[in-house]
Each structure stands twice: as C-alpha cells, then as structure tokens.
C-alpha cells in the first residue's frame, strides 16, 4: 500500500500545510506532505544529574502524519534520536575534578500542532523512549578516572514553534523536558567529583533550534 493510501486509511485525508505560499509567491495549494524530517542543534542542562552538567545537543527526527478529517490540528508520529555531550567541572573545593556525560536518547512520540498562521505553527509533543548515559569522571587532579554506564526509560515533553520559509523547509525552536525514571538514585561519580551524589533532579531541559524538511 502506498504511503498516501495508508495515511488516508488512518484518516489523514487533508493535505498537510495546505495554503502555504509557494516559493514564487503564488498561493497555490501545495502538494500534500506527510513526512517531516528535522535536524536539531542546541544547548541542554542535565538537571537529572547531581552535578547539573550542560552542553551541546544535536538530534534528528522523522515524523509522519497530517490533519485528519479537516481538523485544525496536525498530528505527527515522531521518532527522535538525540545526542548530547554534557560536562561540569570545578565542583569540588578539595581537588580538581571534572565529569562528562554522553547521552543518547531515542523516543517515539505524538506531536500535536496547530497553525498560528499560514506559515507559523506551534506544537506540543509527548514521547516515550530510552536514555543511555555514559559517564566519565576525573578526580584527584586527573590521577583517577572512572567510567560508568547507566540507562533509563524516559518520558519526554516538548513544546516548540516553526515558521515555514518554503514549501519544503521550515525553521523553528523547541524546548524539551526529558524525565528519566530509572537512573541511579545515588551517583558515586558525581559524588566523587564534588556534587551531592543523591541530588539528581527530575529531568533534563534542552533548547534547540530546528530545521524542518517537509516532503
């Protein structure tokens, strides 16, 4: 079955982004686009970890969906893959320490969007996934080095907005809140690095700029 066929079967009959201006300025109804692909780049704070490290976040996402039955809302099933490199240092007043965390998170979620105008829209997203964390800590002025792995089920909430520059291209931003539920309740590496190892927060917060391709 063709893509358009099974989308129609699911009720996504109305072309997505109908009425968006074409590049040449002619307001012709664009061909329906069911798929979106996103590239994200931004900054995150790992508040779920005791030392609250921060660092870059990059991600890709693939989504499929549309506006079912003439609804003003857009629904997309989203698949995310996010990578983050977080770090913190200078936590201990006793000794030079540093701690770095590499995060990989995969989530599947539902994005619900609404059009603010013909070009702008906002969305909310709820996703479930898994978070993998590789941690490396250096203590004792670098004379001791530790590595540890952890992973957790994760609930992800996101809000964002996008502006369509072209029929096939949008830019926007998104704020993610990731809530890992199963990380270690006491983190000895963070403790050795000078943080309170049992002081991890509920979730990580990220802000990313997004580029979206519609097809």
């Amino acid at each position, binding site marked *: 079955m063709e893509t358009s066929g099974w989308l129609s079967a699911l009720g996504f009959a109305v072309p997505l982004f109908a009425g968006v201006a074409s590049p040449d300025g002619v307001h012709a109804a664009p061909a329906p686009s069911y798929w979106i692909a996103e590239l994200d780049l931004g900054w995150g704070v790992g508040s779920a970890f005791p030392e609250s490290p921060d660092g870059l976040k990059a991600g890709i996402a693939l989504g499929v969906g549309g506006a079912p039955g003439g609804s003003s809302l857009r629904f997309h099933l989203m698949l995310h893959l996010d990578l983050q490199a977080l770090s913190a240092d200078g936590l201990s007043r006793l000794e030079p320490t540093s701690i770095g965390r590499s995060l990989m998170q995969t989530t599947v979620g539902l994005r619900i969007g609404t059009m603010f105008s013909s070009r702008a829209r906002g969305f909310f997203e709820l996703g479930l996934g898994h978070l993998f964390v590789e941690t490396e800590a250096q203590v*004792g002025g670098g004379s001791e080095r530790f590595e540890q792995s952890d992973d957790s089920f994760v609930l992800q909430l996101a809000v964002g907005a996008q502006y369509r520059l072209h029929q096939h291209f949008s830019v926007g931003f998104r704020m993610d809140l990731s809530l890992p539920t199963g990380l270690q*309740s006491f*983190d000895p590496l963070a403790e050795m690095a000078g943080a309170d190892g049992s002081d991890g927060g509920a979730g990580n917060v990220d802000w990313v700029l997004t580029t979206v391709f519609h097809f």
Partner: protein
Amino acid sequence: MTIARRSMMLSRIPVVILAAAIGWITGVRAPRAQTFGDAAFAGKGRATLTITRVGAEVEAEPEPVEVYARMTFGTELSGFQEGLYVRSSFAMPGVDGAKGLTTVLVVDVDLSNGRRSWQPEVVGLSESAASGSRDGVSVRARLYEVDDGETGFDARPRAGLLDLEASVVTRSAAGFRLRGWLALLDAGPDGLDDTSDDLAFDIELTLESVPTPDALAGQGSAPLPRPVGGVCDPSVCWVDAGYYDAFYGYGCSDAVVDDGSTSDGCGGEPDYDDYDDDADSGNTDSGAACEGDSSTGYDDNGNPTSDSGDSGDVACEGDDVEADSSGGCDSADSGSGCEGTEADGACGGSDAGSGCEGDAMPGGSGGAGPEAGPPTTPLRRADVSWVGVLMIGLAMALQRLAKR
C-alpha cells in the same frame, strides 16, 4: 462457561495485569536477596583515620594525625569483578600550622568468594584495575596528595590488614564497616624503595557506610568517636568537611578548604594544634567540624539552637562530651573506642547521655539518627519501564474490551 462468567473473568484480567505492572514498576529494580559480595550498591560514608607520617624526611618523633573525613564507595567502581571501592579525600593537616593539601585515600577490596579479610602483598597492590584478582591480589590501596592539580606524594601499600568487620545487605540498602591498618610507601624522587627519600605512612583506618551496618541491621549502636575535648590522643586531630555524624549531620561544606573560614563558622584550614603545646585544650583542631557543629547550633539532644557558640574554643560540645566521656566512651579509647564498646554493648544506644554520639543513634535519645542521613542505596529510582507501560496499556485495552 456462561457468558456472564466469561465476562466476569475478562473483567478481572485487567486488574491482574495492572497489579503485575505496578509490581514490575516498583519491584523490578529492587535487589534480589543477595550476599554482600553480589550486591551492587554505592553511597556515602565516613572515614576515620589515624595517619602517622614516618620516614627520613620527617624529623624526630612521628606524630599521628587523626582525620575524620567523608568518603564515597561503590561496588561498580571497583577494579575487581566483585569488589568494593572506597575513596576518601580530605584536607590533611599540614606541619606547623601550614595549610594542608588535599590527600586522598583509596582502598579497593575483592569481595569474591565471601572474602572478609585482606592482607596486602608488597607487590601488586596498585596494579591496574584490569589485573583483577590475578596473582593473588585481593586489595589495592593508595594514599596520594593533590597539589595544584598535580599529584604530590603517591604512596603504595606495603603491608597491612583489613577486615570487613560488619556488612549488611537489605532490600533497599547496604552497609559495611571496614577496619584495619595499612603501611604505605612513596619511593620518593629516586623511585627506589628503602632509600633516604622515601616517605612512609602508617594508617589505622575505619571505613564505614552511612547509615552504619549496625543501624541497617536494626541494632542501636554508637557511631565512630569524634575528636572531642581532651580525648584526642594524637597531637593533631582534624575533622574534614563532609564528615557525617549521626548526631550533628554534616558539619561543613567543601567551601571551607580554600579560604580558611566560611560564614557558617567552619574553619577551612586545618588547625594544627600541637597537643603538647596546648595541653589544657588538648582537643585539637575544633576547626571544621566542631565549628560547623556549633554554628549549626544543636544542643546536646540534637535540637537546633540559635546559639552559634564560641566555636573555635574547646571543641564545641567537647566539654559536655568530655565530662560524659568518663562514662567510658571517650575517644581516647577510640582505637577500640566507642566502636569497640559498641561491640560489647557498653556504649550502645541504650547508654543515653553517656556522651557518645551513639546516643543519637537508634535506640539513643534524640538527634538525627543514621536513618536521617544519606541513604546507602543499591537501588535505582522506581523505574517506569517499557514493559510497565506496555502492561498498563494492555490492561487498559482489556478493560475497555471487558466493558463491551
């Protein structure tokens, strides 16, 4: 089977699945019944050390330094397959009042085969973690100094004896007490042992989880003794930031180390208090922990007070404690001390008012017992796993189906 009966059974299935899901979520990460060696856990603790620096570079009579410091431990940090890694970093009191540099003590013991005692060999103690317990190495240890990010002395053990004096694993926590002594040696610039530039240390150590194994086992017991007035035999005592005491909680923050003092009254620089020169105070540093304790403002019953006290004076509660110490729980006995008396029951929680911090322990009177301290935990947070979500979804779907 009647339709009604079938419908009733169907309606029960979601409940069963939901119960299973909740059981999964809350219980899947809990440790199974296991031995101390098998369990995976990590946590905070406290190290009580008596360090004697000996060697050619140390003039005259070696003077032991008593250090009470925080520590961190974890089984997954161990270089052994089944091991326990313990690390304590503290500001070592310097000589003649000089600010001490950060010193780190690391002990890593092999817990496989139910081992509870370790006698370090001269060779191999500090071999790489990858060596595991090959060649009979069952314990590694290291005492080193951090000087501006560089390693100062770096002493490796040459002899010693460590015993796992107590260990407890419960469903939600694990605790232990490791006690013994180590002789460590830094070969000095020439890299050769037994030469004039060697730097040697003898350490009596007690490494204990918080909560203590005794507390986890439900036995009221006295914690380790603290350096209080007149009972600190070594010439120098030092309670480092982060040392956890069941009675007073944490004394000072890490911030004490740099600038010598902080607003909370914690002395930063190790207060080198020569016992011989100050016989009447005798108590020692009273710097960090005692000042911190005073500023924290707890009375003898562990109740918060607004009196910040003249902290730098005689070891805070030292007077009381010293007086009470006549009850047989003073730190002078601390080689065995309260810890020892705890074993024979003379200084347990029931001995309230004796002056031991044990009074505040379970079974004692008032104060924050060890349960109020940071948890030693092999647990993860309750994990809503994929399996849990799917089971809940299945339960909800079946619920709807059953209603039809």
